[in-house]
């Protein structure tokens, strides 16, 4: 049986690329909020004009699940639906993000509701998702956790590691910095259950670092045994340092 990978933000640039890259080796649960992912799925079939009226190209297409990760009830439903569909979850990649910049702190020109929503989306929701999977599956499955090398990969940002002044990204940056620390705490809590957790901090993609490189880095993390790491991905960063 192929391992099961739950990917959030699957309609985005990185999420779509991850779904495509992992489909040959994993069963994919692709979570999206509003925009349906562009890749073939149970919600998007390929029509063979010369064959049966509606034929899907391959049996193993990502299984799309709609949900708003800022709503705890949606998080629970997503996990229940994915477990009902596949029976297990082996990898969580949290790539959904609110990437808006809210301006300078001193000008107070930001909308506090939007700021709070960003913090929830970027650093609370990924942890709620991991927690829901843990409670419904990983908690009592130490042997399977080890066998399937189960892990969480939170997609953070280089803005969570460094301050890039002058572009009003303070809250975005803080949300990613918080995600990095929360991931390290998560790794610490999951260690005794044989589940790993790491965060990956890419530069802005695809202009500063290619999306392919970010995907490759994430695949490396999934295949590795590392945990509790915060891994920078820049144009110059080494690919095989883990």
């Amino acid at each position, binding site marked *: 049986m192929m391992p099961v990978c739950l990917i959030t933000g699957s309609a985005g640039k990185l999420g779509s690329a991850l779904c495509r890259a992992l489909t040959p080796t994993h069963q994919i649960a692709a979570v999206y909020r509003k925009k349906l992912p562009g890749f073939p799925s149970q*919600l*998007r079939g390929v*029509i063979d*004009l*010369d064959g049966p*009226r509606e034929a899907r190209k391959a049996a193993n297409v990502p299984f799309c699940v709609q949900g708003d990760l800022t709503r705890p009830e949606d998080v629970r439903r997503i996990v229940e639906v994915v477990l009902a569909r596949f029976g297990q979850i082996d990898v969580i990649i949290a790539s959904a993000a609110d990437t808006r910049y809210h301006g300078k702190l001193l000008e107070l020109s930001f909308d506090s509701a939007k700021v709070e929503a960003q913090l929830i989306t970027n650093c609370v929701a990924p942890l709620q998702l991991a927690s829901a999977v843990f409670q419904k599956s990983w908690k009592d499955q130490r042997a399977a956790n080890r066998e399937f090398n189960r892990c969480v990969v939170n997609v953070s940002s280089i803005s969570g590691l460094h301050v890039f002044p002058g572009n009003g990204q303070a809250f975005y940056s803080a949300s990613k910095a918080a995600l990095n620390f929360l991931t390290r705490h998560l790794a610490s809590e999951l260690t005794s259950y044989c589940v790993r957790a790491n965060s990956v901090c890419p530069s802005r993609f695809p202009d500063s670092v290619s999306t392919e490189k970010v995907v490759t880095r994430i695949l490396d993390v999934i295949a590795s045994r590392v945990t509790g790491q915060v891994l920078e991905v820049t144009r110059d960063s080494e690919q095989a340092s883990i």
Partner: protein
Amino acid sequence: MKRIAELNPKGEWCVYQRPFRHIRAERVFRTDVYQRLESAFLSLKNADEAEFRQGTGYDALILAMRQNLASGFAPLFERRWTDFLAGLVDLPQSAQIDGALHHIPAGSRSGWVHNDFCSGWFNAKSKGDTIFPDRGKCDYFTGTPKAPGFQPKEFVRAATMIFYLHNDDWKQGCGGETGLYEASHAGAGEMCAVPPVNNSLLLFECSPHSYHSLIANPGSHRNSIILWLHSSVENTEARWGKAFQRHKPK
């Protein structure tokens, strides 16, 4: 399903289930056919710009399709094409069709969210492989005769096809997509935006759920050809009950 000779063998046709079932196709026609369609569109637009009317409450400039113009757009208004489309959305074949050329100038506003699920009136006596509404003699939406002796017969829009063409300058961010929605107002539920890429097509069954609209296009004009298939009132009611809109005579 009988393949249309003009189709591009490298075309990609996909069916989507959300926010409502619809079909999208890219690289629809062979290059020579696409170029012919584009030339036909441009020649009408350039020669008869005055015939393009602004829609009510809508910034689009619209030229209603007529039998004598349709042959220039083969195969789009031919029976073999409309039967092919009907097969894709599991509808019974029907001769009654309507169509339009749409030119949406850059800077147009978003259209309103609607579902196209309404009745359309045709001449009961018309015969032929394809039958267009006779707008000179009858109001298409209400069935109100405009000429003595005209016998209007009610049909219902059954499917909408939008074929996008001559949008060479369009790129992401220009706007002009067709928004598809889960509900009758754009802010609620899921939506997706179908980009007006040259030689691509959007097809959906008209139903109580087929909510869609033009999205404002600040960056580039948008051109398209619209085709509506129709179905009998009996067939429609068997599928959807009486949920289609009947416009009252003015």
